[in-house]
C-alpha cells in the first residue's frame, strides 16, 4: 500500500512541475501549425537536425571513450587531489557554456595557446568546423557520463574486481568482464544524459565553432538564428528539440536516477 503524501508536499510538487511544464505547453499553444510543412521541409531544418544528430552522437562517443576511464580513475585511483580533479572535470556542468566556449577559443582557437601550435605545425583549425562543434559539445556534456559512471563504480563492491584479479585476470580484464557489465545501467543512463545535453548545446558551440548552416549550425543555433527572421519557425524548430529530447528521457525513465 502506498503511503499518503502530505498535502503541502503535493501542492509544492504541483507548482514545481507546472513551472517546468508550462513553457513546453506554451510552445505547443503558440506554434504556428499552419506553417509546419514549410518550416520542416525547408532545407535549413533538416540540415540542422542531421548535423545536430551527428555532432551529439560524436560528442557522446568521445565522452564515453575518455569519460569512462576518467570515472574509473576517480572511483578507484588513490591519489592526492582526486576531489579537486573531480571538481575540475565536472566544472563544465555548472559553468555558463559561453565561458566554456571562450576557454576553448583561447586554448584551441587559431590564436589559442595550443591551437596556435596546431595551426602552425599542421594547418589544423578547429574553429568554424564541425569538429570544433563536436569538441565544444563534448566539453559541456562529458561530465554527465563521468559522474554517472563514477557513481555506479562507487556503488559496486570492489571485492568483485579483486576476486576477478585473484583468479588471474589482469585489471583490464576484470574491468572489462566484471566491472563494466555491473555498472552498465548507470553508464547507459549517463550516456543518454550526455547525449541529451549534447543535443541541446548552444553557448559553447556558437562561441567556439561559430554558426554556419551545414557545418556548425546545430538545432539550437538554428532556433536562435530563426528568432531574428522567423519567430514562428523558431518555435516549431524548438518543438522538434522538445519532442526528441523528451522522447529519449521518457524512454529511459527511472533509469536516469538509478531507480531501475
Amino acid at each position, binding site marked *: 500500500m502506498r503511503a499518503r503524501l502530505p498535502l503541502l508536499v503535493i501542492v509544492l510538487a504541483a507548482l514545481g512541475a507546472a513551472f517546468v511544464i508550462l513553457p513546453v505547453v506554451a510552445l505547443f499553444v503558440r506554434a504556428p501549425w499552419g506553417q509546419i510543412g514549410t518550416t520542416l521541409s525547408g532545407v535549413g531544418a533538416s540540415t540542422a537536425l542531421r548535423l545536430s544528430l551527428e555532432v551529439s552522437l560524436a560528442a557522446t562517443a568521445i565522452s564515453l571513450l575518455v569519460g569512462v576511464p576518467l570515472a574509473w580513475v576517480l572511483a578507484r585511483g588513490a591519489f592526492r587531489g582526486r576531489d579537486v580533479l573531480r571538481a575540475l572535470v565536472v566544472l563544465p*556542468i555548472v559553468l555558463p*557554456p559561453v565561458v566554456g566556449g571562450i576557454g576553448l577559443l583561447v586554448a584551441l*582557437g587559431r590564436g589559442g595557446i595550443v591551437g596556435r601550435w596546431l595551426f602552425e605545425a599542421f594547418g589544423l583549425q578547429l574553429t*568554424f568546423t564541425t569538429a570544433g562543434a563536436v569538441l565544444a559539445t563534448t566539453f559541456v556534456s562529458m561530465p554527465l557520463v563521468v*559522474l554517472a559512471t563514477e*557513481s555506479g563504480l562507487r556503488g559496486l563492491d570492489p571485492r568483485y574486481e579483486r576476486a576477478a584479479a585473484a583468479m588471474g585476470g589482469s585489471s583490464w580484464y576484470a574491468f572489462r568482464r566484471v566491472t563494466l557489465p555491473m555498472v552498465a545501467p548507470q553508464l547507459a543512463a549517463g550516456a543518454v544524459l550526455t547525449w541529451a545535453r549534447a543535443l541541446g548545446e548552444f553557448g559553447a558551440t556558437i562561441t567556439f565553432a561559430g554558426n554556419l548552416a551545414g557545418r556548425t549550425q546545430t538545432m539550437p543555433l538554428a532556433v536562435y*538564428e530563426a528568432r*531574428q527572421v522567423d519567430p514562428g519557425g523558431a518555435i516549431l524548430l524548438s518543438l522538434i528539440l522538445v519532442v526528441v529530447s523528451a522522447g529519449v528521457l521518457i524512454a529511459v525513465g527511472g533509469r536516469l536516477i538509478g531507480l531501475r
Partner: protein
Amino acid sequence: MSRRVRRWTILLAVAGLTAGCTDSSSPGTSPPPATQLTVFAASSLSKAFDQIGQDFQTLNPGIRVTFDYGSSTELAAQIQSEGTADVFASASGTAMDTVQDDPGVSNRTNFATNRLLIITPPDNPAGIDSLQDLTKDGVQLVLAAEGVPVGDYAREVLKNAGILDQALANVVSNEEDDASVVGKITSGEADVAIVYTSDIAVAGDTVRSVDIPDDVNVTATYPIAVVTGSPYPDQARAFASYVTTIEGQDVLEQFGFGPPGG
C-alpha cells in the same frame, strides 16, 4: 560516499540540462533607488551609450539608466513579447518600424548614422586589401546573420559590388550581433569581417581596417524612440532627446558615428 556522488550526479545532471542557453543579461533586479529606465539599444551602440548613460545620470540624479544591448531585430521582438523597454535605439529603420506597429512608439527621431567597413586581424593573415579580396579562395569571412541589421547591410554592400555569391561562399560563421562579429576578428579566429565604421573607434589597434568604396557602401540610419506603454514616458523622452543634444552627439561622434543627416 557513493550516495553522495549519486546525489551529485542527479543534481548536476539536472543543472546541466537546464543550463543550455545563455542570453543577454536582463536589467538588474536591485531595488530602484530612483526611476529605473531601461534602454534597448543596438549592440553597435554599446560603448557610446554606456558613456551617454553615465553623462545623462550625472545630469539627472533621479534617473538610473540600464542598457540591454543586442541585435536590433531581436530587441524589437523582445519589446513586442515582453514590453520591458522604455526607450529603443535601433540600428535600422526596419526594426524600429516593427516596434512602431506594435506596441507603438512616440518621439521617433533619427540620431546617428554609420557606414560599413572591412576589418581584419592586425597581421592580416589572408592578405585582404580591398572588398574584392573577400572573394579569394580560402578566405574566412564572418558576417552577422541575416536579419541582424549589420548582417543585412553587409550583404547589401556585397550585392552592390556584385560579389554577393562569391563572398557568401567564404562565410564561415553568421554571428548573432555586431559585437560577436568584431569578437571573431579581435580574437584572430577569422580572416575578415564587414562591420560598422564605429566599431573601429572601439576596437582600436586590435583590428586593421580596409575602406569600402563610397559607391557600393551603405549608410545605416539609427532611430531612437520612446516605447508606448513605458511607465516613465517623461524620463524616457528626456533620455531620447538627450541623445540628440550637442553633448550626446559629441559622444556619438567620438565613438565613430556620423550625424543623423548623413
